[in-house]
């Protein structure tokens, strides 16, 4: 008899282009601080990767509170990309992440094409960065990101500019607040992206009717959580129809079953954000849930699951 159970034998490895991951579960940017906040609570190396909070060249203050509000099966946030700037990240946070053997993806922000390129160049020269996620989709700040993410030419230009300065895998993070996300995935692919990640949050709003004031100081914010999951799954599916590069899916994943929806729709890996707020110990539960599913369905490799949506005619039982 084999010493290991069927669930232990499955191969969870996946890849985002050239970047190999031990499992498909990635901590989403903006939901995991700089990673070091969780270093004493969980084993950072047990995650497929972590995407640290978005970084500009300089420090950023972010928006005043209230920065979040709960909504049905979800939450709005308007943090405003508070951050310590890329140089302080490299000097003060990256060494610990390296020591903890975390696979680090950095979420790169910019107010201009030049800033994206400069932040990317600095990170490429640093030791311990595995890939760059280009934030062209934050809905909460006016002066950066979304202006590129809502224009096909802008998306192309940011990706091309970063492509010229780095050999790291690059993965633009796409906004769902456009007519056709898939066309943006294709623009990114044509400009040399190694992968795309989607979706960022849906621009949304909540009002306190007693005071008639917006519930967020920024008036609008980004909706995340289970409320958005079916839309996100659809968008991942649409993108995968149109591009050959890997798609990393996210949007309201709370458990392994939710993650499987994205993977079957075509995601090579998934990011988990809001669920980490609810349960910082979710990571091993996701891994266990995926192993159990694969054993039950006799699937040996995660990669065999990716894009395995069955569209054959339904048979009458």
């Amino acid at each position, binding site marked *: 008899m084999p010493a290991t159970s069927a669930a232990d034998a499955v191969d969870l490895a996946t890849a985002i282009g050239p970047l190999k991951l031990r499992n498909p579960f990635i901590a989403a940017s903006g939901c995991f*601080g700089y990673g070091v906040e*969780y270093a004493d609570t969980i084993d950072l190396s047990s995650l497929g990767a972590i995407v640290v909070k978005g970084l500009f060249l300089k420090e950023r203050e972010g928006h*005043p509170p209230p920065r979040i509000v709960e909504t049905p*099966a979800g939450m709005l946030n308007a*943090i405003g990309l508070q951050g310590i700037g890329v140089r302080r990240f490299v000097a003060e946070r990256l060494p610990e992440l390296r020591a903890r053997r975390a696979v680090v993806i950095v979420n790169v922000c910019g107010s201009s094409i030049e800033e994206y390129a400069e932040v990317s160049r600095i990170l490429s020269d640093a030791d311990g960065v595995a890939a760059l996620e280009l934030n062209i989709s934050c809905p909460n700040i006016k002066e950066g990101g979304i202006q590129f993410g809502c224009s096909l030419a802008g998306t192309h230009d940011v990706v091309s500019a970063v492509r010229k300065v780095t050999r790291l895998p690059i993965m633009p993070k796409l906004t769902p607040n456009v007519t056709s996300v898939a066309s943006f995935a294709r623009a990114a692919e044509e400009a040399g992206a190694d992968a795309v990640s989607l979706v960022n949050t849906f621009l949304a709003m909540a009002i306190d009717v007693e005071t008639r004031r917006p519930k967020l100081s920024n008036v609008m914010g980004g909706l995340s959580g289970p409320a958005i999951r079916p839309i996100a799954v659809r968008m991942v599916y649409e993108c995968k129809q149109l591009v050959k590069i890997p798609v990393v899916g996210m949007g309201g994943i709370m458990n392994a079953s939710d993650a499987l929806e994205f993977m079957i729709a075509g995601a090579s890996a998934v990011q988990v954000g809001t669920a980490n707020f609810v349960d*910082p110990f979710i990571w091993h539960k996701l891994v266990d849930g995926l192993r159990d599913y694969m054993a039950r369905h006799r699937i040996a490799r995660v990669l065999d699951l990716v894009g395995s949506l069955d569209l054959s005619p339904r048979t009458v039982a």
Partner: protein
Amino acid sequence: MPVDVLAEVVANTHLSDDYSVLALAAPEIASKAAPGQFVMIKPSAGIEPLLRRPFSVFEILRDPSGTPTGLSILNKRVGVGTALLYSARPGDRLACLGPLGKPFTPVDAPTEAWMVAGGVGLAPFATLAESLVQRGTSATLFYGARRGADLFCTDVFDRLGIRLALATEDGSRGDAGFVTGSLERALAARAGGAAVHLYACGPTPMMRVVAELAVRHQCPCDVSLEQVMGCGMGGCYSCVVRARNGSGEWHFVRSCLAGPVFDSRDVAWEELGASH
């Protein structure tokens, strides 16, 4: 290092139509929690509501041998999550993550500890009072509410031998007026410059007045701030407070990691009021 336990509700004692003391079996958290720390509790097992809520640890529950068996929280029904917790029944299980946050530093004699609580802001002071008594520090609780019926759990402090200075806005128990009025008179009447360390928790306007009195009367003052929190772990950056760091610069800092206990002089009070 926090732990997450699916804690059984041991008791849920209703103090009024809005307040209850919810006791949870969570020895792993209770044995590590320091005064002023908090826990994140999920009011329901599902996704509605989605997020956990932060609560100061109120009491550490112990078995007859003194071994910690759990903790209680002082819950005030204000929204969906706290309403669910108000109606929780013994035997229910609630996910409880903790202990989290920076605790109070209990002061030593001869300095006296004066705790100032408004309403549900009483919560962090039961464990602090216990710790002060153990150290032999003389302690007083200034405790205010709208009316006498809203002054809860004074027996907890009586048992510990804490001096009580009560105040109600309607004058139905203790001094008539805000608790800060009682505090101000006591500070002015202090015998021969006795050193006092203030600890405050309550509505923001109350804490702001305490912070001002602390400056005027040259007393150190720690406040426990309550902010909307997403995760309690430093992951989401939602619970920020503008505060002064060691170099004297003002920044948005996460109250879950840098707090919830802050030196009152390091808090930008004018902004704290504006956000509510």
